[in-house]
């Protein structure tokens, strides 16, 4: 490995613009993820956090700007190159996205069977080690339908790390977890990052949880990163929009309500919402 690849950022997003239909999602997004760090991407719902993950994994391409991951330009990579790059990345989906026709063991074994020809005993040990790491070695024979949401996400995490990726992307890893699973996943993200040297990108709107483990955070709003820094820096900010988000308040410059006509006027008007006719 050359010196530049050790020190260069793992992810570099520069001036990205992207629209979904008529809606502009990113308008000049800049973001950098340093090697070996845990970087949090936060923001209210609908600010394009999941879209960012799709850009990083090359599922969609930006209209302009560049997305570089592990020193390769994702937007211009041909399919073969993109697949080679994805083998070096892991991703944890919000709902786990386990393959429903395979049991837990086979789900974790799936990427290995697809990409490497390991002897069965070696594969077995590898999968059991990854399942042990997420505390689910005993559930190897269960089907995804038999798992709780938290367990499914842990299996998905075992699957995401089975190929020893250099970058691990977490899409809303804390949503809908009970406190025990939540604490477990938080510790796991930290320990995977430290023990295996994996660069982690955590997309979440769970400010408290992600704040405890992130080395650096970005706050997305209105199509770009409106704030960035360590958790302490973000919490100490004077920006009212950032403060509102960090403190989870519904009052502030960030609108909680979807744009609507005047409330009192609409109630008094008594227009029938179903038919649109006045009584």
């Amino acid at each position, binding site marked *: 490995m050359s010196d530049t690849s050790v020190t260069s950022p793992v992810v570099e997003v520069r001036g990205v613009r992207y629209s979904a239909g008529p809606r502009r999602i990113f308008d000049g997004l800049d973001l950098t993820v340093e090697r070996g760090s845990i970087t949090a991407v936060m923001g209210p719902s609908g600010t394009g956090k999941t879209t960012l993950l799709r850009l990083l*994994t090359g*599922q969609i391409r930006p209209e302009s700007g560049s997305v570089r991951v592990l020193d390769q330009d994702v937007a211009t990579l041909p399919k073969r190159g993109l*697949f*080679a790059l*994805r*083998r070096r*990345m892991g*991703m944890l*989906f*919000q*709902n786990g*996205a*386990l*393959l*429903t*026709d395979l049991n837990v063991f086979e789900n974790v074994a*799936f*990427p290995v069977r*697809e*990409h490497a020809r390991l002897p069965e005993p070696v594969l077995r040990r590898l999968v059991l080690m990854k399942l042990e790491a997420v505390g689910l070695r005993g559930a190897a024979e269960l089907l995804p339908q038999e798992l709780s949401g938290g367990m499914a996400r842990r299996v998905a995490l075992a*699957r995401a790390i089975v*190929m020893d990726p250099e970058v691990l992307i977490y899409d809303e890893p804390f949503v809908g977890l009970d406190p025990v699973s939540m604490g477990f996943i938080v510790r796991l993200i930290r320990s995977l990052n430290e023990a295996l040297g994996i660069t982690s990108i955590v997309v979440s709107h769970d400010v408290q949880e992600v704040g405890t483990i992130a080395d650096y955070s970005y706050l997305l709003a209105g199509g770009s990163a409106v704030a960035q820094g360590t958790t302490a820096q973000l919490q100490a900010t004077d920006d009212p929009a950032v403060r509102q988000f960090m403190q989870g308040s519904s009052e502030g410059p960030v609108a909680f309500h979807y744009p609507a006509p005047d409330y009192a006027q609409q109630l008094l008007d008594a227009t029938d919402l179903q038919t649109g006719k006045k009584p």
Partner: protein
Amino acid sequence: MTAALQRVGAVTLFLLRLLAVCPAALRRPGPVIRQVYNTGARSLIIIMLCGLVVGMIMGLAFSDMLARFGSESALGVAAGLALLKEMGPVITALLFAGRAGTSLASEIGLMRATDQLTAMQVMAVDPLRAVVAPRFLGGLIAMPLLVAVFDFMGIFGTQLIGVSVMGVDAGTFWSQMQNQVGLDDVGEGVIKSLVFGFACTLIAVFEGFHAEPTAEGVGLATTRTVIVSSVLVLIFDYMLTAAFL
């Protein structure tokens, strides 16, 4: 009209992409065999039952019809030709579309709706190769086998009713069939079963793969699978029958 043409274009492009990954899918026979089991073996009961009943109906109806011309002895030929050339492939294909086609479409559609296909792509696995191709090949292999089972049960059913209930002579039944039903008749049925299997499976995997990732989208894909494959089977049957005349 434009929408229909666009759809035909989309199916054709999908087919070309699918055919390109089929050799790679065949190099891993495990999933293909599992799909032959899923689409074929799991449809066996319904195919056997329907084949038997259709045969029994033909035993009754054909005996009655032929008796009016004094030619009950032709029951074996009539039933054999009708089953091998028309009824076997067509009814099996319609049942296949209802049983295996819907299950393929909804399974693949749900895999899309629950991000399983996206997860595969992110794991650098082409879902067309890992999910769609084994199901397509499995259906292609299963269909002619199911038609053979249907034909066998149908002839058995006709013989059961025609000989034991309607009183047609067993020797005449079998010898007439042996004399008049040739290998080309069997071949016609085999070709039809291959074409129908191809059409039904292709439509099912296409609809499932392109389903909107919602409950409504998956439902719509399933419905469309049954309707489009049933209509296609009947149209193809007419064209093939005309071609074989």
